[in-house]
């Protein structure tokens, strides 16, 4: 079990969490769909960060960077059209707990430098995106 396998095993956790999220999106009530979509981009970002470290290829974090940008954007655009932006404590706490729990060990592993800056940027975007799109009072992003 080399360290890279350790990171890949860690990447498995958010990946396995995607299964129930898929079930929620496919079968859950309307409100849960957008929560699910929001959660998916968060979990995918985390899985990608861990996999990048696991494969030893820092250039894979570009994919995580684009996920952290497109995920919240997509959620907000869908919310605009479906006129429902459900507040979800699940997404918020997953972000507030999950992101630091993955980004900090990664920063320690990569050491200071341009790669760490990119990791922190991705972490910040993931947290900001999740918090904004899941806070209370944002129905469809538009208030009457």
């Amino acid at each position, binding site marked *: 079990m080399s360290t890279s396998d350790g990171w890949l095993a860690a990447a498995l956790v958010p990946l396995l969490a995607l299964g129930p999220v898929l079930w929620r999106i496919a079968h859950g009530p309307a409100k849960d769909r957008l929560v699910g979509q929001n959660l998916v981009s968060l979990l995918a970002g985390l899985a990608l960060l861990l996999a990048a470290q696991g*494969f*030893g*290829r*820092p*250039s*894979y974090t570009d994919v995580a960077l684009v996920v952290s940008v497109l995920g919240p954007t997509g959620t907000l655009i869908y919310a605009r059209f479906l006129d429902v932006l459900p507040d979800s404590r699940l997404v918020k706490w997953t972000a507030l707990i999950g992101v630091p729990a993955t980004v900090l060990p990664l920063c320690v592993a990569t050491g200071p430098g341009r790669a760490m800056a990119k990791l922190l940027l991705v972490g910040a975007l993931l947290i900001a995106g999740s918090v904004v799109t899941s806070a209370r009072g944002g129905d469809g992003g538009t208030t009457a």
Partner: protein
Amino acid sequence: MTVLPYLVAGWIFLIGVYGLVTSRNLIHAVGCLAVTQSSTYVLLLAVGYRNGGTAPVFSDAPTDSRVVDPVVQALALTDIVVGATVTALLLALVLQLRKRHGTVDPDALSELKG
């Protein structure tokens, strides 16, 4: 594991075509066509994989490292563009068809028969 990716690609193709055949809403049908096409990406990249290989991008890897096949990735890229544009065009047709026919249910379209 030796055949699973190929069989998953075959499954996705068949389930996509099943969706197309039994669809009662043309927007859903175009979505099923996009699903059918994603089977070609899975098969393309599964064919190009090499055990223990890494991505053929040498910005952060030594140029003699064992890499997976870059050609299938270029083909998959082209294929994704084709998929996106065909989906967009067909959705435009469905949108206008809804305007002119008043419905998107293929069963209710009876213009071209016989």
